[in-house]
């Protein structure tokens, strides 16, 4: 069974179907399956994951100034559904143009 490490995915360059750079892979999104496993449903791309790791999750309500900074730091984040990946090489290529990617997984995949 072929395997891959999350650390190996993180940091790979991401380009859309027209070759525009979308940053790098910052995170891997999984979904709990009926049998109790975790299935990959997509990737988070962007320039940096740090603000995302801080500001992510909706439970954070930082003071206004900090919130503005965190939001700006996360402005580049995009969600890439697994079935929109055309090629998973050293560079990850998407099968759709960059502007069609949502900001959160729920924007495009209400499943």
């Amino acid at each position, binding site marked *: 069974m072929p395997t891959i490490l999350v650390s*190996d995915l*993180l*940091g*790979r360059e991401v380009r859309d179907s027209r070759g525009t750079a979308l940053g*790098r892979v910052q995170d891997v999104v999984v979904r709990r399956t009926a049998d109790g496993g975790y299935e990959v449903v997509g990737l988070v791309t962007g*320039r*940096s*994951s*740090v603000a995302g790791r801080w500001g992510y999750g909706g439970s954070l309500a930082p003071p206004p100034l900090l919130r503005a900074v965190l939001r700006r730091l996360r402005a580049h984040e995009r969600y890439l559904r697994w079935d929109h990946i055309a090629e998973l090489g*050293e560079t990850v290529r998407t099968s759709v143009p960059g502007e069609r990617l949502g900001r959160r997984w729920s924007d495009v995949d209400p499943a």
Partner: protein
Amino acid sequence: MFAKSAAGPSARLAVGLAAGLAVAAAAAGCVPGPALTAEGYHRHVEQSATALLSAVRTGTLAARLAEEGRAFGPALDTAVSGAEDDARSVADTFASRQPPTPGEDAVRDRLTGLADNAGDGLGDLRIALRRGDDATARQAAGDLADTAQSLEAVLAAEARR
């Protein structure tokens, strides 16, 4: 293996910060180079005189505390020994620096003499305090007070330049 040079900005920030701290600490710890200009030499004179005055006055303070019986031996000994070390190291550093023009020779001679007085006076005071020799200690304190006055005169003259 894939090249993943994409350090997060905050990682770079933190690494940069750590490296910067080390470099700055190293840079700031360096002694200034040899005084090349008259201006630089006079700054050196001022710094040395200020440091000497501080050491000498630490000595006179310790002598006063000893005379009034307000402090015990080891604490005074440590304070005076520290001041003596400072004075001697200032004297060494000062003597090693060459004045850029003959015009600075006079101030150099004057301060070199005062630096020696300071070191010797503090040394005398330290020994007298250790021996409990009040008369000598009082004498050394008097000498130190004179040295302090002369150092103040040097500083005042430098300030008028």
